[in-house]
């Protein structure tokens, strides 16, 4: 038997058993919520507290774990030898994320956390024969349970094609999300889904589309809270199987912390958004470049609903949704900018330094700065739009030399600086010796001495 074949036993649906022994031979036995598959020769166990198990392993690296198949209840024994602890890196991150989700759900962020991912060599793997007595009656497997997977990746690829097509053709955001979530349900059997986007107040996310819930739209989650908030915060996909079992475990720790007078360290437990009896959850961040566009959340009452294939597959859908939302939002923004309010630029001229700042950022200095200031002031005073080179030359306050003043090259510099830093303020040549001021924004002018 390959270790990978026991992956279902490692989902945490049925807690595993771990035995260790101290150097002087005192055995210890405990439940552990999860065994993590690392590779064919290694598993990792999470260390959340410095407890007896941890002390034993430090003294005596041998350990034995029994794991159970969540559907058949077949039992397996793994003989282990402690190899090393990891406190950073991919494995640690992955295990820590899972614990963080449970911790935040149960209001224990910071109290309940991963100390280390303890990696063990798997020395031996054997089935525990006779753990179950023979069944009096053979129980027929339910047909629906494994239907989608039985049809294999081709069906899912076709489903993906349809989902992708609906995303590509969507006319607006509402249609995009509604159609996509409907396609995920109809074609791929993900019947409880939500898309959350950043809410108006910072660090909160709000559901703007949902499928399979009586009330879903408007549900809010804070950044870092629960599986959705954690996926948003860490920008990583998170899968939780057996949510019920993990939450019971989290609540057990919470009540111990409370009983020991540390209740003040705990935040209130937050209800799971979505299904009250969800057994498996998957949250995928929607990323466009570096920007977090939102979160796609998928839930199920079946604790083993999601596997790695679903992760890979939904990640593709999530990426497409992210790009589509981003595209629609930027189109919306452009339209909004054109029709609705103009922005106001705060332009500050520092008299004794001859320099101009736009919105607190340095724009230009010396003669080009004086030219820009003059032009903006005159425009503000009497609405003047067109200016001649001649009137600039005649203005003694600009301090242009009488000969070889290089006015043209200074105007070019000003034009370049503006197009780089303030593209909504433009100086456009109209005909020989003349230029026009074009404003796509409002300007607020302030003159200051610098200190």
């Amino acid at each position, binding site marked *: 038997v390959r270790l990978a074949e026991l992956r279902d036993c490692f989902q945490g649906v049925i807690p595993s058993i771990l*035995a260790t022994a101290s150097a002087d031979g005192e055995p210890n036995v405990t439940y552990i919520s999860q065994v993590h598959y690392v590779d064919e020769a290694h598993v990792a166990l999470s260390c959340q507290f410095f*407890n*007896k198990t941890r002390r034993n392993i430090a003294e005596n690296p*041998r350990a034995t774990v029994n794991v159970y198949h969540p559907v058949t209840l077949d039992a397996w024994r793994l003989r282990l030898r402690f190899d090393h602890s990891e406190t950073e890196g991919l494995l640690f991150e992955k295990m820590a994320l899972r614990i963080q989700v449970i911790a935040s759900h149960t209001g224990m962020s910071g109290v309940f956390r991963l100390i280390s991912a303890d990696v063990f060599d798997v020395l031996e793997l054997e089935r525990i024969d006779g753990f179950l007595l023979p*069944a009096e009656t053979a129980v027929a497997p339910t047909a629906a349970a494994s239907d989608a997977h039985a049809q294999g990746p081709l069906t899912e690829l076709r489903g993906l094609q349809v989902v992708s097509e609906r995303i590509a053709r969507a006319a607006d955001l509402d249609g995009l999300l509604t159609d996509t979530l409907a396609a995920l349900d109809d074609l791929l059997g993900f019947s409880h889904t939500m898309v959350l986007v950043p809410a108006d107040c910072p660090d909160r996310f709000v559901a703007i589309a949902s499928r399979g819930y009586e009330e879903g739209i408007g549900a809010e989650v804070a950044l870092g809270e629960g599986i959705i908030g954690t996926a948003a915060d860490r920008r990583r996909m998170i899968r939780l199987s057996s949510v019920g*079992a993990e939450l019971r475990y989290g609540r057990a720790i919470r009540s111990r912390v409370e009983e020991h007078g540390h209740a003040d360290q705990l935040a209130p437990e937050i209800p799971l958004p979505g299904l009250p009896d969800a057994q498996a959850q998957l949250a995928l961040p929607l990323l466009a470049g570096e920007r977090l566009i939102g979160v796609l959340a998928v839930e199920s009452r079946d604790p083993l609903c999601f596997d790695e294939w679903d992760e890979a597959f939904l990640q593709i859908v999530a990426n497409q949704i992210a790009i589509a939302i981003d595209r629609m939002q930027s189109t919306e923004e452009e339209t909004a900018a054109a029709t609705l309010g103009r922005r106001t630029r705060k332009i500050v001229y520092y008299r004794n330094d001859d320099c101009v700042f736009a919105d607190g950022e340095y724009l230009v200095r010396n003669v080009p700065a004086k030219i820009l200031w003059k032009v903006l002031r005159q425009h503000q005073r009497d609405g003047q739009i067109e200016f001649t080179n001649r009137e600039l030359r005649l203005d003694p306050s600009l301090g242009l030399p009488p000969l070889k003043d290089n006015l043209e090259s200074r105007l070019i510099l000003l034009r370049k600086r503006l197009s780089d830093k303030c593209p909504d303020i433009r100086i456009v040549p109209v005909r020989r010796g003349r230029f026009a001021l074009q404003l796509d924004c409002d300007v607020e002018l302030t003159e200051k001495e610098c200190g």
Partner: protein
Amino acid sequence: VISAELKAFLESGISVLIGTRDRDAVPECARAVGARVDAGGDELTVFLPEATSAACLEHLRANGRIAVCVSRPADHRSIQIKGRAHSIRRASAEERAFVERYVAALARTLTFVGLPERLTLRIAHWPCQAVSVRVESLYLQTPGPEAGTPLPAARAEAGS
């Protein structure tokens, strides 16, 4: 050592695990099918199915050292008991009824955490060995920061 309250908890049909070790301190674990408090709280009898506890029974015959973890699946309330096995014998016919009641109670408890009785009622439980353990110490094992601390309540009540 074991208080009346704890006795009721231990015998309430909750999960019982045992840990042993061989002469090289290599540990082994198994699921027991019942625990009974005897001798006014100084002794615990655990029932180990022969089908799945062969290695543990061999260790117990060799060195007697045993850890017992009793845990309630619904809220993870857990106690760890350390002790020495001093007698190991095949469970009697009259104890079989106790064991069967235990398995039925455990199966019922496990339905609340999503395990169907059609599976849990099949957990190997007969024939089994009755292992008598002299209790040496008790520890709190409910997951959390205090896990692993000696159980003060039980000690305070030990004299009562």
